[in-house]
């Protein structure tokens, strides 16, 4: 135990004495949050909206009122033909048109289904998508409420004229992505680098020739990065709550629990890399290309997984960050409970077991 503590202390010295790296590690989440949160503002406001409502029944009026009441939408007027919608869109006078089918309420009651169409300005696909998402979110909420009051499940079929980016997207949906990325960088990359550095500098040779157990070396290497990860986790949450005004909708305990699981996952990834690699350059390359790139591209942080070609969708399912980001989104943004993230949790736990097993199998008591 004393050996272990001495080793952990040494690791802290290494980190604390490398001021520049410390600064990067602690500053990275702050910069990323601010960058994604403000500079790349994905929020669209003052959406100019028209509604074409041939049905004009109780339900359509309720939905329209909700949209009008939303702070992002400016209700312009009701229109009475598709031609008018086309003209307004072409002239750039509106951003979105919402079209109900005829006999909307009746269809809903008799067939349990009704059609609704969202037509958005395609000239800026990004904005268009975001607007469509907003509308869908509002209708989704409305549907949820209906489900609560009615025993019969009604279904409003939304037809989006711009099936481009069906994900709900705004500044704060980046928060889960950044959390995933930062934890991955610190735990996986930094841990593997710090172990491989000992190999490269020759100090591993002395450690090997000492009674110190290999796993003691590895585990004590992870402690400082575990600590750093917690600091960063808290920074990110504080920033997102107080600066980006993204409240934590779900349980904070659950959020921290899945984050801890993900930290362990990232640490075991780092350990596996370090047992397989002998130079820092290779460690950085593997972590960078093997972990960072997929975490950025395949995790759903930037590009929605649903829109990817199938092979990429499959590939994304082995990207650890994907599952973590998905779980955080559900808990933090959507406020869902543990029952909704069982799948994510089991995948993450499964990955941890696999990676730790693989690292243990790979630990060497000697030089290569």
């Amino acid at each position, binding site marked *: 135990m*004393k*050996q272990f503590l*001495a*080793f952990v202390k*040494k690791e802290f*010295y*290494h980190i604390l*004495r*490398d001021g520049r790296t410390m600064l990067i590690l602690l500053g990275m989440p702050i910069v990323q949050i601010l960058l994604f949160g403000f500079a790349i503002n994905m929020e669209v406001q003052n959406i100019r909206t028209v509604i074409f409502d041939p049905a004009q029944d109780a339900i359509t009026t309720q939905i329209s009122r909700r949209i009008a009441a939303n702070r992002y939408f400016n209700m312009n007027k009701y229109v009475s033909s598709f031609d008018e919608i086309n003209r307004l869109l072409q002239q750039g006078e509106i951003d979105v048109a919402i079209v109900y089918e005829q006999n909307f309420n009746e269809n809903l009651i008799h067939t349990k289904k009704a059609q609704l169409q969202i037509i958005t300005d395609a000239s800026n696909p990004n904005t268009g998508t975001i607007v469509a998402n907003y509308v869908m979110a509002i209708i989704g909420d409305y549907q949820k409420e209906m489900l609560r009051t009615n025993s019969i499940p009604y279904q409003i079929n939304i037809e989006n004229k711009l099936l481009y980016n069906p994900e709900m997207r705004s500044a704060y949906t980046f928060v889960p992505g950044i959390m995933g990325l930062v934890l991955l960088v610190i735990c996986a990359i930094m841990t593997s680098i710090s172990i491989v550095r000992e190999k490269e*500098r*020759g*100090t591993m*040779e*002395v*450690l*090997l*020739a*000492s*009674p*110190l157990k290999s796993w003691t070396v590895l585990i004590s290497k992870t402690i400082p990065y575990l600590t750093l990860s917690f600091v960063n986790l808290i920074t990110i949450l504080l920033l997102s709550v107080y600066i980006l005004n993204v409240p934590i909708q779900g349980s904070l305990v659950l959020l921290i629990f899945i984050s801890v699981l993900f930290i362990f996952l990232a640490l075991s990834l780092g350990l596996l890399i370090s047992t397989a690699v002998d130079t820092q350059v290779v460690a950085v390359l593997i972590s960078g290309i093997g972990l960072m790139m997929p975490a950025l591209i395949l995790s759903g942080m930037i590009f929605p997984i649903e829109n990817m070609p199938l092979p990429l969708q499959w590939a994304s399912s082995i990207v650890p960050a994907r599952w973590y980001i998905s779980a955080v989104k559900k808990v933090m943004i959507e406020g869902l409970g543990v029952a909704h993230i069982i799948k994510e949790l089991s995948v993450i736990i499964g990955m941890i077991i696999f990676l730790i097993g693989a690292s243990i199998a790979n630990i060497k*008591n*000697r*030089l290569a």
Partner: protein
Amino acid sequence: MILVKNLHKTYGKVTALNNLSFTVNDGEIFGVIGPDGSGKTSLFRILASVLLPNSGSAEMNGLSVSKDFKKIRNIIGYMPGRFSLYQDLSVEENLKFFATIFSTTIEENYHLIKDIYQQIEPFKKRRAGALSGGMKQKLALSCALIHKPEVLILDEPTTGVDPVSRKEFWDMLKRLKSEGITILVSTAYMDEAGLCDRIALMREGNFIATDTPQNIINSYNETLLAVQTENMSASLSDLRNHPKVKTCFAFGNQHHITVHADLSISDLQHYLNEKGYSTVEIKAIEPTVEDCFMALTNNP
């Protein structure tokens, strides 16, 4: 006692150790002497239990370096060829760290490292990376000694170290030997051979001679002469051109030449005078270990 039998190590097609067998007695300084790439580091790594041989065995005080590596690691102090301390930790922190991982304290074995550590103690707050050659070696040796090992394995501790620091280093090894520690040390400096109790001359994975330095010198069977002239570089080729001179190499301010036994000093003196050298000094000399090494590598 260290008992090595038929130790064999290859890296792909390269043979690093070729069926080495030797013993090292308790409390002796055993030097492995050979140029870079002769296999010293592979041998020392295997003995330090951090590398596995392809075949053969090595036992240290009855413990196998392959099977009992956990126990071995408690009784050895190992100093690899490269400076292997933490550059960003201070002198004191390094020493403390190594004491702790060997479950001991600096105080417990201070007597053992006192002579060495005292020389660097004034700079104990300094980061190890900011020390230079001689001091780094002293710190590394202190760290390797702090758990009072029974066997000390030092891989080229004096490489790149200046002659004065090297001398000091060897004095320290002498004192450690008197504490009963068995010392295995490798070096590429032939002049350090005389400081060992027994030496092994190593070349291309083989021990080409294993004995006391004096016995190795005694078994030298060439006629060795030292020649000095007023123009050393010119006389080198003139000497080599003499039909009865076998080899001729510069050794400091002299040339060491091996000659056929029937060549007399006066004949050679005459030959050089004829070649136009006016000050010629020739005498028969005792070989050095370096002469022996060269003779042994010349006629394998």
